[in-house]
């Protein structure tokens, strides 16, 4: 199963991180290849983005279902392809280090199904961890910018 986990440490209180991460609209444009998203309900949204696989780009549409909000430390979600045959999930986790510092982890797993699944999963093996890393770092960068933290 192609997956990736990436952790960063921020000199920002956990509550501030939660305030940012808990509103999808804040970080949606930071998803690599983001095109658009639509929030259907508190727990459900659809997303469209263009994945850059290096040798080609593929536009995909997917649905995200929030499974759990544990304020202020974790949000977990499931995802499924609306345009293509894949499923997966992920989470954002925030862990308090001190009152002013937080460890933030992003995790993503995506598995392609169908006849071409084995082939596509080989391609996703690099793509998914890279995306998890890019997204986590982009969110960290944005939070630092908002909080006026210089790295």
């Amino acid at each position, binding site marked *: 199963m192609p997956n990736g986990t990436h952790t960063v440490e921020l000199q920002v209180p956990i509550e501030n991180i939660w305030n940012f991460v808990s509103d999808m609209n804040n970080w949606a444009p930071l998803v690599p290849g983001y095109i658009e998203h639509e929030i259907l309900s508190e727990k459900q949204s659809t997303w469209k983005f263009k994945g850059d696989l290096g040798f080609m780009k593929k536009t995909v549409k997917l649905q995200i279902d929030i499974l759990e909000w544990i304020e202020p430390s974790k949000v977990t979600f499931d995802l499924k392809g609306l*345009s293509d045959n894949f499923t997966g999930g992920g989470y954002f986790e925030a862990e308090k280090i001190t009152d002013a510092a937080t460890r933030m982890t992003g995790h993503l797993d995506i598995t392609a199904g169908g006849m071409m699944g084995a082939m596509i999963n080989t391609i996703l093996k690099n793509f998914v961890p890279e995306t998890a890393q890019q997204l986590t770092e982009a969110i960290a960068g944005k939070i630092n910018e908002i909080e006026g933290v210089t790295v």
Partner: protein
Amino acid sequence: MPANRPATWDHEVDVVVLGTGGAAFVSAVLAADQGAEVLMLEKTHQVGGTTAFSGGVPWIPMNRYMKEAGIEDDRESAITFIKRLTQGKEPDPKFIDLFVDNGHVMIDYLHENTPVRFATPKGYSEYYGHLPEALKNGTRSLDPEPFDLNQVGEWGPLVRQNPVFPPLTLAEGGAVGGIDFMKIAERMENNIVTMGRSLIGALLKGALERGIDIQLNTPGKELVLDDEGKVIGVVAEKDGEKIFIGARKGVVLASGGFEWNQELIKTFLKGHVTHPMSPPGNEGDGLIMAMEAGAALGNMTEAWYYPTMQDPTFEYEDHVMNQTGGGRFGPNSIIVNKHGKRFAHEGTTYNDLPRSFFEYDPVALEYPNEAPNWMIFDQQLKDSQMIITMMPGEEAPEWVDRADSLRELAEKIGVNPDGLEASVARWNEHVENGVDPDFHRGTTHFENILGGGGNAEANLGKIEKGPFYAIPVHLGALGTNGGPRINEKGEVISLRGNVIDGLYAAGNAAMGILGPVYTSAGGTIGPAMTMGYIVGKEVGAKEAREIKEAEALAL
């Protein structure tokens, strides 16, 4: 105009080859083997050009791999077959002999002197297998053997990749059905490549072993001529700076066709190719340089046509990728024009079908079949075949037009509804009778090449089970097939019929030596590599011009 001579050359070599496709690499390797110092200039960020993007299959009569497989072939049969197809429209018949006599020698040479290896694809046959003149017991097409791209080290990721070709050989079904996705995954894990990447990978290894210098992101821009009109060098561009490269023996134009240059397309081709299928760097650079040097041109109205389709969610180098599509041979599909009418046998070869797009109606004063035309099919075909990127059994993506009735579908796509309904009714009648008197579906070999040739059972089926689907069919090209006129040594000929000393051309950058003909799988690469072989031997063995300091400073 060609560049003035530079005050000094930035580099001096014996031979400069523009391009890194099949013709380019073969000419570079052969030139190096004659003792020449060779420099290859590649416009893009990757090696391999159109060849790497292709099946990598050369079509070569009397080749060694056929002999090993027990397939009989002879010179006269090959020439007769090619002439049956060219119908006298080749630029010069002596090139047919030249190709037949040298193609298998080129294959022998590569086998004996480079890592290039082929196999005769089992179960494969000739596109025109239904013709009496065609080879009946196998194929002249050669299938590159899988190649371990790790062998070229850091160059591996720089070998161009066609994203829709999985790493399977032709025999394994890499291009036509029968796909083993587990094998694909295993090869991807291990960096084992096939088809065009395999051929280019092996040629690249051969070139690197010979110390051939390959410069990426370095397009050749202008030829440098002396006062007698002899080509003595090239002006290239690197990082925005001009670099002057002196050539002691010659310059080889092997930089691909002009299918990505709309101005040249409109100027020369009968049909307006809007959807090229090659890498976007093919903009006619070699052709323009040759014209500037006063070259005569040949076969300029021809291209390697393809009826292309698109999955708009799939992009290659910032363009929606033009793909081979599929489905048009299938029993439950037809292709119609904007009037809703069929106009050709839908399952003929990809180089033949698009020629029906150019028809002109002198009464209606229009081109009724001008692309996009539409492939119309029903749920039965959708359930049984892979079409573009749609797999059987999976729901059709939102970009595919569909409707519960043919009339509704026609209205949705802007096709005459009465015409479409009538065409489908007539097609279904033909299917009922087991024969297509209008366009003879089910009678050509190509439309069921893996099943022994076209027949009513395989290629005729009613369009009757909704929902009904429509996909636009565009006029595409694998490449263009015209360029500077060459002689039997691959030297470029001037408008006045003289040799332009020091200038050579091969592959899609040159005049297509077999004219409009695409003999079978590899009908492009076979002649291209053969001319690359001839050019490389000629230019490599040429006496080196002495570049004197005074000459180089003679502005």
